[in-house]
């Protein structure tokens, strides 16, 4: 950003000084933003990791239960039992603002929320009890999955924002601000040099007149 062939005028100097001031203020603000984002991100990513571990473990258990259920029932019976669900889950998404990053907040809506049996859309005569357990377990995992989704998405979006902010902070800190300072210095030196030139000229002129 160092401009060497600038017009060495007072107007240019005051313009650059103003720019420098704004750049420094922006740098300070962005740096604060970056620090705060980082603080929140670290807390969030720790939670993300814990939630993922929990989810993976519980889901693994559930799959095992389903495997057991599948082994005590004929496969076509199992498929028939779970292929036509009564329940319908949908999602409401809200926008949440975290330090200028818009992250989703989610809420699950069950169509038959007042019917606790709606997740068992089959008759109990032909199906194994193991299947009921597996489904109940899977249903209990849904909130964990949902929380994980929120946290993980927020982490992804925040990581992106942190990277962007860091680039901006660095660009200001290592390119824009030193460049402006350097240019201001060059203009100052040129102006000073002009002034000294004028003084010398005046002294010389005075000398010639006096002779």
């Amino acid at each position, binding site marked *: 950003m160092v401009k060497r062939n600038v017009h060495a005028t007072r107007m240019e100097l005051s313009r650059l000084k103003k720019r420098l001031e704004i750049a420094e203020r922006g740098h300070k603000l962005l740096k604060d933003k970056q620090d705060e984002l980082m603080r929140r991100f670290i807390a969030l*990513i720790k939670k993300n990791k814990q939630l993922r571990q929990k989810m993976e473990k519980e889901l693994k258990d559930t*799959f095992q239960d389903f495997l057991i259920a599948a082994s005590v029932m004929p496969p076509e019976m199992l498929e028939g039992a779970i292929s036509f669900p009564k*329940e319908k889950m949908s*999602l409401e*998404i809200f926008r949440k603002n975290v330090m200028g990053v818009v992250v989703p907040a989610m809420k699950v809506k*069950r169509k038959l929320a007042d019917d606790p049996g709606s997740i068992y859309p089959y008759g109990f005569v032909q199906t194994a009890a193991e299947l009921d357990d597996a489904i109940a377990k*899977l249903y209990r995992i849904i909130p964990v999955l949902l929380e994980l989704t929120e946290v*993980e998405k927020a982490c992804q979006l*925040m*990581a992106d924002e942190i990277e962007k902010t860091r680039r901006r902070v660095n660009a200001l800190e290592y390119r824009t601000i030193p460049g402006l300072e350097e240019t201001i210095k060059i203009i100052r030196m040129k102006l000073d040099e002009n002034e000294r030139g004028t003084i010398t000229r005046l002294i010389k002129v005075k000398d010639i007149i006096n002779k």
Partner: protein
Amino acid sequence: MHKIAVVGDKDSVLAFKVLGIDVYTVSGEKEARITVDRLAEEAGIIFITERTARLIPKTIERYDKKFIPAVILIPDNQGTLNIGMERINKNMEKAVGVNILE
């Protein structure tokens, strides 16, 4: 109102159907990619098994920067491949520069 979708091989994801979550069984890379891209327009969350996600890393990455959908990797009935964890670690390296939770 958004959908919740699960994408993966039949044996792993069929269980989700009973809860009223939309289940899409896929096999092969092309089918997986088309399914995810189509779902991205209407689904709020796409749960995808790691074994399927492994085939289409570029497609999944593309949705990381978007507000919705959230593409979340889940293990399948053969266990986890640790891709989900790796994604968290990568995310951290991107933001912090180093992995600080190791």
